[in-house]
């Protein structure tokens, strides 16, 4: 409400109506549930120290390779050395693809599980190389060293190379640097509060959304750019549901909306100014993430329709708003 400057907004609507315009405000406050499905990841550190992450998710526009790269990079490896692979059942471990707003939370934690195993193994190898106990090994800024003596260290790449060196790998440590992680998520509950301002043309009944305010809680945000993209895209599809799109069959069963000249989807010109904001209530998982793919589609349609009803019901003017 604060975001929208609600009181001023109500005043603007009141003035517009006095000028004879059919303008209305509509609200939607909602809760979602997501993360129905498990995911897995296979992470391979090559002898060079470059990393390949095989994810069971199957991104197709969401930008998850970017988010996953960020997550892996936070283990202490530069982004440009990380490659994300998906979409090949011969290569990636079993999982549930991309849907249901579960890619980042379920897929991301599967990657974290695998990375944790790799880190543990690298610590063992580094301990052997530094002739110390794994318990005393610290990994920082791309280097493994013994606590309290950072001057003597081995690099990430040296440890990776040693993992594939028959003569170098410490006694009792299995060769190679690969790990698989599976993650079974707990359901998460994103929520939001949306407000739409619309105008209805009394002559043609055309509904024009004027402005949208979308406050979202998707848990902790890994990449605001990607999350905003999901909210904009989801809002566009909800706007389509509210004012443009419908599959229509004739009485004899043929499809009347059989091309994109009959089935209207929103384009950039139909999408009004959209103000996006977030609250970040972390979900009870390591990343604190909930899910974002479907949120705006779940939240917005009814805000627009409620606004249309408000615009057309003059008695609403007498309703006290706060």
């Amino acid at each position, binding site marked *: 409400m604060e975001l929208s400057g609600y009181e001023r907004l109500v005043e603007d609507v009141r003035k517009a109506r006095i000028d004879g315009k059919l303008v209305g405000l509509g609200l939607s406050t909602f809760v979602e549930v997501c993360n129905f499905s498990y995911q897995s990841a296979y992470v391979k550190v090559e002898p060079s120290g470059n990393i390949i992450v095989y994810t069971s998710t*199957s991104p*197709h526009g969401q930008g998850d390779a970017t988010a996953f*790269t960020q997550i892996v990079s936070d283990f202490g490896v530069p982004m440009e050395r990380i490659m994300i692979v998906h979409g090949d059942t011969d290569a990636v471990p079993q999982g549930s693809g991309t849907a*249901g707003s579960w890619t980042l939370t379920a897929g991301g934690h599967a990657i974290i599980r695998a990375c944790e195993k790799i880190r543990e193994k690298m610590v063992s190898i580094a301990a052997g190389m530094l002739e110390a106990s794994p318990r005393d090994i610290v990994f920082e800024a791309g280097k493994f060293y013994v606590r309290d003596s950072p001057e003597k260290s081995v690099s990430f790449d040296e440890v990776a190379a040693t993992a594939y060196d028959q003569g170098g790998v410490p006694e009792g440590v299995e060769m190679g640097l690969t790990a698989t992680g599976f993650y079974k998520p707990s*359901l998460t509950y994103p929520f939001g509060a949306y407000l739409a301002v619309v105008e209805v043309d009394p002559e043609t009944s055309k509904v024009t959304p004027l402005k949208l305010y979308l406050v979202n809680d998707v848990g902790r945000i890994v990449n605001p*750019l990607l999350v905003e993209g999901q909210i904009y895209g989801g809002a566009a599809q909800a706007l389509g549901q509210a004012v443009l799109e419908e599959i229509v069959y004739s009485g004899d069963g043929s499809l009347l909306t059989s*091309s994109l000249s009959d089935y209207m989807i929103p384009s950039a010109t139909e999408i009004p100014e959209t103000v996006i904001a977030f609250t970040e209530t972390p979900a009870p998982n390591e990343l604190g993430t909930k899910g974002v793919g479907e949120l705006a589609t*779940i939240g917005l349609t009814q805000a627009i329709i409620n606004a249309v009803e408000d615009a057309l019901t003059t008695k609403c003017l007498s309703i006290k708003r706060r």
Partner: protein
Amino acid sequence: MLVGTRVKRVEDYPLVTGFAKFLDELTVPNMVYAHFIRSPYAHARIKRISGVKALKEGALAFYSGRDITLNPLPVGSVYRGSNTPKFLPLAVDKVRFVGEPVAVLVGVDRYSLADLAELVEVEYEPLQPLMSVEEALREGAPLIHEEFGTNTCLRWSYSSGNIREAFESADRVVKAVFKIQRLAAIAMEPRGVLASYDSSSKRLTIWLSSQTPHQHRTWIAESLNMPETAIRVLTPNVGGGFGSKLAIYPEYVVVPWLAMRLGRPVKWFESRTENLQTTTHGRDMVAEMEAALDRDLNIKALKCRITADIGAYNYAYTQDNPVTAANMIVGAYKIPAVDLEVVEVFTNKNGTDAYRGAGRPEASYFIERLMDRIAAELKVDPIEIRRRNFIQKICSHTRRPQTLNTILATTKKRLKNSWSSPAMRGWSRM
């Protein structure tokens, strides 16, 4: 720390420079194309199909549903007590929606194929189409799937709390009916499949515009009676899905079958008209709602009956979506008593399935429209009615709103085959 920062997308360079390959840009040596002959009728008996003329004019192959024996398409969610129809990849005897494939034609390029398709003769005996829930449920209506003796796919219900008492003692009762219309997902890239079979290694490679390559591999293996390990599913760049690329479709079984039968790679790519006719639709539900309120504007009970027009066949999660809508109907509000009912009805339309939100947009739409209706009828501020009814307690462990707890927990008991539906796997862990 990079988590939490606005890192630019790492996957964009090939996409914005045009080097990224999508399914329709892939070619394999010796590749041929498939073209599906589809029903122009919503409901009809197939009397006769002949591809003789097309074959004479140069088509490489022609098969109707009678020529090939394929298993019905796997379905993701099957609820106990539901009528789950058999969806054959190529229709036999009867068609149930406009666009349903009845035969497939193979040729060297898709343009000549489109001409050859004109030469395929299909004789139909039109039946009365049922284009709405009302028509489908009318006494004496023709049956879309005769074997069930009804046009109802599923009846589901749930009740908790003392509904009768809440309504009897209510200060006000507000009733409303809301409809959320049928949509298409309209992914920028339509569906498509390319299959290549290596008879020496007995391996099938399938390029698919898919959201779930592993699930598709499982389902295709099941359909073709092959081990999963004999199939490799690859997704090139995929141009959107929004739920419409989850299900297994007729083409995903027929095209690999053709590749094996003909010993040549076969590609099919959907036109936008086919996309609108045959790729899963979403929503199409009506909710009849009734709320009982006390003097202080607290909602004490909610009745909701959702009727869903699910079309002719079940795709992957068709049965789930209306039930999910019912499950989530309490939204952000503490409502101590609920009485929920779902009726899923067959009609002669394309089947529905998950579409961005999959039941949850419907739930939010219904409850949020109702909140505004209550506000209008009781002449209170729409913000105030919401504030009064918001959930105050959140389960500290799961951070799950408590009113949802009980409803969600009971849903799992209704599930029959929890192995394949991600939604079910989720619910069943409640």
